[in-house]
């Protein structure tokens, strides 16, 4: 693909929540069945403008996440297309039973947007971090789990989900994100990983905001003549097993990167595929099993080694160890 922002272009930073709001607003103007539901979260979801322009299509439920998801399932059952925008920490925990039963089990066409996900609430601490959400949602049958890398992918993902009837959980962060793509001039396919950089020496599989870190790592490794494949696993479920097995076979080593606990998330999902199909050495980089340290996302990432410098070193060790 030729639309990848391989090198960091730190000027372009847009928050994915803003993109979701703008995209949904455009689509909802043409389709009165599209609804946004918020739990006193329209500000944090950047949905104020949506609510102002389409007040009949924004449903406020107050600070009541269980009710939020249940109401959405009811709306879906009478033919609406509800998009639920609520902080990932609450949406994926407080209302997980409604997600399991009312949404996934009942096959309700509800799209759950977990905003301010991962560690993006920074200093607010573990109550507001959501680094277990992929583990929990991934284990629920009938629910897609997705995480866009940047503004371009976010737009493509929301557009793809509008006429896609399977329920989905989409997790995004709070803060402006650097681009990983140059534009939206490409085909986005749910469940299909994007090879952001070619290479056969090692593979880094990332999703969400860690895709940028993976690309930066690939650039750094290039300076050491190491060709690093980068797979953007924007859909964590259903997982692109073909791309993972191919990477295991062709590159022989895999590093996974995620803004999530090292338990049960992307790394776990990838290792489930690798270990049962083509076992190769792997490293799972993410948040260790502890209440994550508080700070700004780059500070937290650096603390846990989710940065190009550390991952380049790990990649080199894995290659030289071979």
């Amino acid at each position: 693909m030729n639309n990848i922002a391989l090198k960091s272009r730190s000027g372009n930073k847009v928050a994915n929540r803003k993109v979701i709001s703008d995209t949904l607003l455009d689509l909802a103007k043409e389709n009165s069945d599209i609804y946004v539901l918020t739990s006193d979260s329209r500000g944090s979801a950047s949905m104020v403008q949506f609510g102002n322009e389409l007040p009949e299509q924004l449903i406020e439920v107050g600070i009541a996440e269980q009710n939020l998801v249940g109401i959405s399932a009811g709306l879906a059952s009478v033919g609406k297309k509800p998009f639920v925008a609520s902080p990932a920490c609450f949406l994926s925990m407080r209302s997980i039973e409604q997600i399991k039963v009312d949404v996934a089990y009942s096959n309700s066409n509800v799209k759950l947007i977990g905003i301010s996900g991962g560690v993006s609430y920074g200093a607010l601490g573990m109550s507001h971090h959501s680094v277990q959400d992929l583990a929990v949602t991934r284990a629920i049958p009938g629910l897609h789990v997705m995480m866009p890398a940047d503004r371009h992918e976010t737009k493509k993902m929301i557009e793809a989900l509008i006429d896609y009837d399977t329920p989905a959980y989409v997790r995004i962060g709070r803060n402006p994100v650097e681009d990983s793509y140059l534009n939206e001039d490409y085909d986005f396919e749910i469940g299909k990983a994007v090879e952001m950089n070619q290479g056969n020496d090692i593979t880094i599989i990332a999703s969400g905001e860690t895709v940028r870190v993976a690309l930066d790592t690939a650039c750094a490794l290039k300076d050491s003549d190491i060709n690093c494949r980068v797979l953007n696993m924007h859909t964590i479920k259903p997982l692109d097993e073909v791309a993972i097995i191919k990477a295991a076979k062709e590159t022989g080593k895999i590093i996974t990167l995620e803004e999530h606990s090292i338990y049960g998330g992307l790394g776990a999902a990838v290792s489930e595929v690798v270990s049962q199909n083509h076992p190769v050495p792997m490293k799972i980089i993410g948040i260790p099993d502890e209440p994550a340290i508080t700070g700004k996302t780059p500070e937290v990432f650096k603390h846990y080694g989710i940065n190009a410098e550390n991952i380049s070193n790990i990649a080199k060790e894995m290659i030289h160890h071979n």
Partner: protein
Amino acid sequence: MIVLVDESFLKRKSIQIRKDLLEMIYNAGTGHTGSSLSNTDILTALYYGVMRIDPENSNWQDRDRYVQSKGHAVESYWTVLADKGFFPKDELKTFSQFGSKLIGHPNNKMPGVEMNTGALGHGLSISVGMALGAKKDGKSYRVFTLMGDGEQAEGSIWEAAMAASHYKLDNLIGIIDRNNLQITGSTRDVMNNEPLDEKWKSFGWEVIEVDGNDVVELVEVLNNAPYKTDKPTLILANTVKGKGVSLAENVVGWHHKVPSEEEYKQAMDELTERLEVLK
């Protein structure tokens, strides 16, 4: 609204449903006997005297919606749906058998079931969504939700109760099957939720109290809802758990007890006798 109902038909139907559900539970060796006998008259009223439905076209867009929040009392529900022709009565024989779609909780793989329920405290939120959808579309269908009285301890019910009055959902009718018992014992002892009428009133609902085992009264009361424009209706249906089968009436242990051969015979004889009287 004046509704002409065949009182004798309704009464006989509610006894026949009881016999059918008991047979199903007895053959399956599992089921919520007391809970299903408790809400049989409510379901009979809804499906034979109140709701606009079309079993031939179960997805008819303008149908009234029924959501059974107290999902465990499913035996009366399955029996009524089969009797109405949503699926063949023969399927009742598969209840709770390996791989059957007729499981121990409502399952929307079966025609006539709107949503999967079973985890308590979910149904009213779902119903708020449906009722809100009807308002948005300018449609006149109503949404009926059956809850248990023990279920009132679930906090999510009160989230939904608040939202229903906030959005002025007078097309939503909540029904509480108030039999005063739950699996551990008396609802007042386990977690006292009274006074339920005052609680619901304070949440902005119009509350109507009825004999929840009087199928004729239920039809009349349910058909007259809503009672106030812009207000959701709560029907506080006073019921007897195990109603219609003397040995199970008001006995905590019958929540999900299966009758023995002797108990089954005694129960069926009692119901058959009552049916004969009504003929």
